[in-house]
């Protein structure tokens, strides 16, 4: 287990290095590059040359890359030019990451809370109208562009339900401790701040939940179908166990194994979806920073955030794999 973890982490370092190298090189090769970003093309040839020298962009690209790595090692990933101009990219990431974690957490929570029971029911009633309807529903869910759904929620549901449709919190004087707004309120006892933050989470979390929901639903359904066909379920029935015990202990405990893996894979979808959802809901998370970064071509921020997204994605999947080992005795006790 330990060796496996270490191997995966070493792989991750390799991936990050390769990725950062590719991104770095590509960004440097773009017409204009940082000089254009800073001078906004006002540049006269002279000022362009001066700035190129000043920033050391005239050096060979691998020299620049190693310098970048050196700075990165000290936490300096460059300065934002568009998202929060002047702020360090790392600061932007650290400040916004809790927001995205919060949002993704609630999204996946909703997706599980709805997807698993629905998937179970659909499997139990395989071929029935409920099954067909929910399968088609989940396929439609996949076919709807996330940002369109987000706009629908924002423009229609927010006024109908009286829910806030932008930002992470109203301008209430909340104390900041962790950067997780829902937690901060609980820690400081400012329950209103927590509630307010939660209200702000509902609509974006629902919008973001659609992608993982569809997948979790379908995986649950398939897994339950598989498990229901298993002999041990028949054994459980032959023991006269009550339906809830069979469902919980015998069906779901087995069916959840592939679902857990899926949840790990959904981190990717969540990160990508957060870019769209956070943009729609002006939710100050990493996704919004990415969206603004793309729009305004804020390359230092993009470089860091893409690398961070990769790390998060890989690490979450590693954690899921490890937790999979914990919940599946066949792997744990091997």
């Amino acid at each position, binding site marked *: 287990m330990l060796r496996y973890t270490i191997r995966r982490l070493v792989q991750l370092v390799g991936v990050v290095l390769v990725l950062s190298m590719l991104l770095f090189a590509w960004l440097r090769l773009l017409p204009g590059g940082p000089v254009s970003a800073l001078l906004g093309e006002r540049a006269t040839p002279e000022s362009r040359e001066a700035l190129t020298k000043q920033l050391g962009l005239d050096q060979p690209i691998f020299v620049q890359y190693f310098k970048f790595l050196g700075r990165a090692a000290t936490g300096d990933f460059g300065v934002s030019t568009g998202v929060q101009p002047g702020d360090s990219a790392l600061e932007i990431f650290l400040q916004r990451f809790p927001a995205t974690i919060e949002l993704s957490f609630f999204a996946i929570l909703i997706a599980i809370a709805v997807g698993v029971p629905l998937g179970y029911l659909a499997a139990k009633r395989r071929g029935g109208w409920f099954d067909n309807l929910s399968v088609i529903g989940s396929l439609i869910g996949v076919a709807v562009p996330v940002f369109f759904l987000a706009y629908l929620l924002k423009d229609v549901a927010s006024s109908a339900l009286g829910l806030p449709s932008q930002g992470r919190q109203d301008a209430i004087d909340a104390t900041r401790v962790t950067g997780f707004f829902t937690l901060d309120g609980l820690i400081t006892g400012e329950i209103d701040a927590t509630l307010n933050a939660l209200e702000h989470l509902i609509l974006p979390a629902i919008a973001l939940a659609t992608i993982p929901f569809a997948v979790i639903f379908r995986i649950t359904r398939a897994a339950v179908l598989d498990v229901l066909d298993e002999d041990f379920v028949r054994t*459980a*029935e032959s023991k*006269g*166990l009550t339906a809830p015990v069979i469902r919980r202990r015998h069906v779901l405990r087995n069916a959840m194994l592939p679902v857990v893996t899926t949840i790990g894979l959904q981190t990717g979808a969540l990160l990508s979806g957060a870019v769209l959802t956070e943009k729609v809901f002006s939710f100050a998370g990493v996704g919004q920073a990415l969206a603004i970064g793309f729009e305004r071509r804020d390359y230092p921020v993009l470089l860091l955030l893409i690398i961070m997204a990769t790390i998060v994605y890989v690490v979450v999947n590693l954690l899921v794999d490890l937790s999979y080992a914990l*919940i599946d*005795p*066949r792997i744990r006790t091997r």
Partner: protein
Amino acid sequence: MALLEVRDLSVVFQRKGEAPFHAVDGVSFDVEPGQTVGLVGESGCGKSVTSLAIMGLLPKRGAKVTGSVTYDGTDLLKLSDKQMRDKRGSELGMVFQDPLSSLNPVVPIGLQVTEVLERHRGLARKEAMIEAKDLLDKVGIPDPNRRLKEYPHQLSGGMRQRALIAIALACRPKLLIADEPTTALDVTIQAQILSLMKELVQDLGTALVMITHDLGVVAGLCDEVNVLYGGKVVEKAMRHRLFAEPRHPYTHGLLASIPRLDAPRGEKLTPIKGSVADNIPWTSACAFAPRCPNALDVCRSVTPAEEDQLGRLLRCHNPVVPGTPAAEEVPV
């Protein structure tokens, strides 16, 4: 009165858009308390479906069960789902074929034993654990305390089957159905399991329905044997009688296809030709006719009726003449 009276049991599978399939077609047999009854036949003959029908484990949708299964005076087929759950595991136990797939891979053996005790005997987990340990002990699992905490994949095949038997017998059921309990096991272990079952059944006075395709198993265990073909009982007799003089060509064929140590050297084995897939429906013929060496024209046009021949039931237009040795005389 018999402990279990199965009367005219039929199971029809009906899938949307497909022709109905008669898996079990009017099967009747009795099981007396303490008696061991065998249901024998090739796979697909309906023996497993019969057992599932008795246990009420067939899917609600898609499987139509008719007839009656009277256990201890009550028709199991008429019971509600809840009443049936109360009976299963406590009065009716069942052991399945593949011990690995029949045990939940992610639940420790201990819990899989205790849950049935908790369910039917209302024991608390702790008490149940103690009892479970005794049970494992009784079925011959060494070091039961450790095994209770282990998962199925950590046990050997034989031990898994022992565990399954422990589960099935945990509440001392009056009737145990064993569906090919030894098929998935090594030959040496098969014998151990069979003798264990025999021992336990005798100790507990449990009636046993043994479902198998293996006449060897039947020979060692059963009092009465029902030979099934195509969903119908084609021959029913006490063990000795059946083995001594099989009348139905199918039974005859089955026996003939067993290698015998006492057979003269060089004697050919006589497999039954064809396979179950060659069946024709019972509706206006004998389902076995296409494969039957004794088949007459009437076999292909008239459904044979069940005839009682001095305690032996037979469903055949042209039974094998007693004393006929297998092989040579049968035109292949």
